[in-house]
């Protein structure tokens, strides 16, 4: 038995590897042939090897349930997703353009607010935003950059075109899975790597380190960089530990740090106190400093905001950066790019209806069965409605929610997310929907990961790819077939 790509059912879908006639697309040809020659038994062996590798590496994330927290292995599909390098280079340019513009926007919002005065973005958006932090007004972070690490979600629609679905500017996660997925694929499908010109992803940790080091307020040769984690019960703890290890940075919890009377940040070590220069914080704004934000937070460090405002420590991402990852602001990003850069956006947005606007709201309520409705400030796929997959009861509930608090909801057309062949139970691959989260870094320079994390909805027909909602992931290959 071997895979017959002709039997792969991907009509009416845009599949990343196989075209509608059942032929592998150009960059996937060798992979498809290789997989079909491998035979079902061997393929299953490789899958088992992948599962065992995931377990041994301790690749996991934590899921919160009523029965307590489960440390769960992250489902991994061994068939990689392939993007030609030529296409990727264009996307990377678009992502850099986007982050540059977003940072100019955030900096403007906490200073002159020129974009509001010029009437491009309405002021109520900022006044009502859950993620606008008045405490940050007037602060001048290095290079004028607030969002140093950005994870933007890309989706390909049925027309084959890539869109930005959202930008995550607070504490985006997933990059460690991108790196681990590559390590697993090298163990599981070593033969293909010899033949394909797959561009490497491994330099991310050193790029992250360089980006963070450039933020150090003390101009010293070896600035002290730490990763601040909420601790082992956080769903992304694995990633925090992984990145600290890969960068050779200390992994700290709030209780390891203190702010002294000189408004500098120190960590408690076996030598006593040591000064900290840069904090890559993986704790949400609201919990980083109980003196300023959530008073009951035990995760943060009292006085951290004081130290940051005085320029004695760098925080990445800066507090308040989330003002630009609001899903309502998202709708304005094309205008934001044009306003600050005087350039046309290189990657389009998904058309977005703002329920705040009466016309849009009426349209959304009328067409709720066709649309995806999202709360403006949630992440992780919680609290959203996928119209075509919902019941009348769900729809009525959302209509009510929208009417009660229109500002809090946006809607987008349900995209026919692209698919890729995925091994789920049966011997033959089946198409499953996926997205892509590349990571973009900015301080002194800009950097985009080679590809990113491909997340895949393991359930047939499902469009929800989030790890917390039962999604899995795949390795992402940027293949340079011309350079090979």
């Amino acid at each position, binding site marked *: 038995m071997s895979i017959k790509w002709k039997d792969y059912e991907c009509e009416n879908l845009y599949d990343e590897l196989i075209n509608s006639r059942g032929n592998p697309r150009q960059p996937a040809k060798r992979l498809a042939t290789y997989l079909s020659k491998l035979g079902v038994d061997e393929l299953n062996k490789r899958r088992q090897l992948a599962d065992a590798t995931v*377990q*041994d*590496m*301790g690749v996991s994330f934590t899921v919160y349930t009523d029965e307590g927290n489960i440390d769960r292995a992250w489902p991994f599909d061994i068939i990689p997703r392939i993007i030609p390098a030529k296409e990727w280079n264009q996307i990377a340019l678009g992502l850099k353009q986007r982050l540059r513009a977003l940072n100019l926007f955030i900096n403007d919002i906490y200073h002159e607010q020129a974009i509001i005065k010029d009437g491009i973005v309405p002021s109520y958006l900022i006044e009502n935003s859950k993620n606008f932090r008045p405490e940050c007004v007037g602060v001048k972070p290095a290079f004028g950059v607030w969002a140093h690490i950005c994870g933007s979600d890309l989706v390909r629609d049925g027309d084959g075109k890539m869109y930005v679905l959202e930008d995550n500017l607070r504490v985006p996660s997933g990059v460690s899975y991108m790196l681990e997925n590559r390590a697993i694929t090298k163990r599981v499908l070593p033969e293909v790597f010899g033949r394909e010109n797959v561009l490497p992803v491994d330099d991310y940790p050193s790029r992250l380190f360089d980006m963070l080091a450039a933020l150090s307020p003390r101009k010293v040769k070896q600035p002290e960089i730490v*990763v601040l984690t909420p601790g*082992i019960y956080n769903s992304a*703890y694995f990633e925090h*530990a*992984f990145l*600290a*290890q890969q960068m*050779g*940075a*200390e*992994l*700290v*919890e709030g*209780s*390891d740090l203190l702010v002294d009377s000189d408004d500098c940040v120190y*960590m*408690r*070590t*076996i*030598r*006593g106190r040591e000064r900290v220069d840069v904090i890559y914080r993986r704790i949400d704004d609201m919990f980083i400093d109980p003196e300023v934000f959530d008073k009951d937070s035990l995760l943060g460090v009292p006085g951290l905001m004081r130290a940051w405002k005085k320029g004695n420590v760098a925080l990445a991402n800066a507090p308040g950066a989330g003002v630009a990852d609001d899903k309502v602001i998202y709708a304005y990003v094309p205008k934001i790019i044009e306003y600050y850069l005087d350039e046309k956006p290189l990657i389009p947005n998904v058309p977005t209806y703002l329920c705040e606007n009466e016309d849009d709201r009426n349209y959304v309520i009328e067409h709720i069965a066709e649309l995806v409705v999202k709360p403006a400030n949630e992440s992780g796929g919680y609290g959203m409605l996928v119209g075509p997959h919902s019941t009348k009861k769900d729809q009525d509930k959302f209509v009510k929610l929208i009417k009660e608090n229109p500002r809090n909801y946006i809607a987008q057309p349900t995209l026919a997310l692209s698919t890729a062949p995925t091994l789920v139970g049966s011997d033959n691959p089946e198409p499953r929907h996926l997205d892509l989260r590349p990571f973009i870094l900015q301080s002194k320079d800009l950097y985009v990961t080679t590809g990113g994390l491909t997340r895949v909805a393991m359930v047939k027909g499902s469009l929800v790819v989030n790890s917390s909602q039962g999604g899995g992931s795949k390795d992402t290959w940027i293949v340079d077939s011309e350079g090979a």
Partner: protein
Amino acid sequence: MLSRVAERLYWAARYLERAENTARLISVYDNLLYDLPKDLLDISWFNLIDLNSAAETYNRRYKVQNERNVVKFLVVDDDNLSSITSAINAVRENLRTTRDVIPPAAWEQVNELNIYVTKHAKDGLRRALRHEFLTEIIERSQALNGLLTGTLIRDEAWQFLKLGRNIERADMTTRILDAGAAVLENNKIFKTSNPAQLIWGNVLRSQGAYMSYRRAVKSTVRGSDVARFLLDEVLLPRSVAYCSDQIKQAATNLSQASGRKQPVKTDLPVYTIEEEDDLGADFRNYLNDLQLAIGDLHLQVCNNWFARD
């Protein structure tokens, strides 16, 4: 190095050593007790609970003091923080929170160890599979120690691992000696005419020290010689003297590196053993004092490096 990280590494090393030595401790009795009259078997197994100072926890969990319950308590019981499964899990949790300072391969190995224990812990309860299970625990713990020894840079992380390993090992060596002394004290009737030789031979084997003893001591297996060997032989890596030397080295190194002036006092009480009669109640009291002194060493380490000012 963060104090918290130092503390977790220290505990990771202690729990790893505890799991391994618990496996060694059970294996002494596993070999030994079949040579006892049947009606004394269960009482003797309960020695293992007593000498681990765990009677209170045990009695809260079990009514009957028999082999089945004792082994269950020592191998799989989650309420017993020193059971093999609890200890291995504690190793994993401590290393999970210090992954930034240990080699990735060590992290993979501790995961594999944890997966093995989770899958096979029940084997430890069955006589037919017990030996293989205990051997596997010992070998895998040694493999992890070997990996760290062979790859880890000798910085503070290494010194804290070394401290934890040797403090726990010294403590467990005293308990294994106590296990031997206890059997001898409690059981006057054996199937064999020379029970002492049998018991002390097993104590040596459980510590992987039988061959070394034979070559170093060049005499038959005698309790007084065995006890002296496991306590005082500075060349034997599981002896109390050797561990104490390692503790002293690590503590001195850390005091210098961390600029903390408080020297760790590593002197341990001594006891003279000349003949077999010296292994009675006084000997067991001495072992108890030794354990208290080791406990004091632990407190010194905590106060010196783990305190949060």
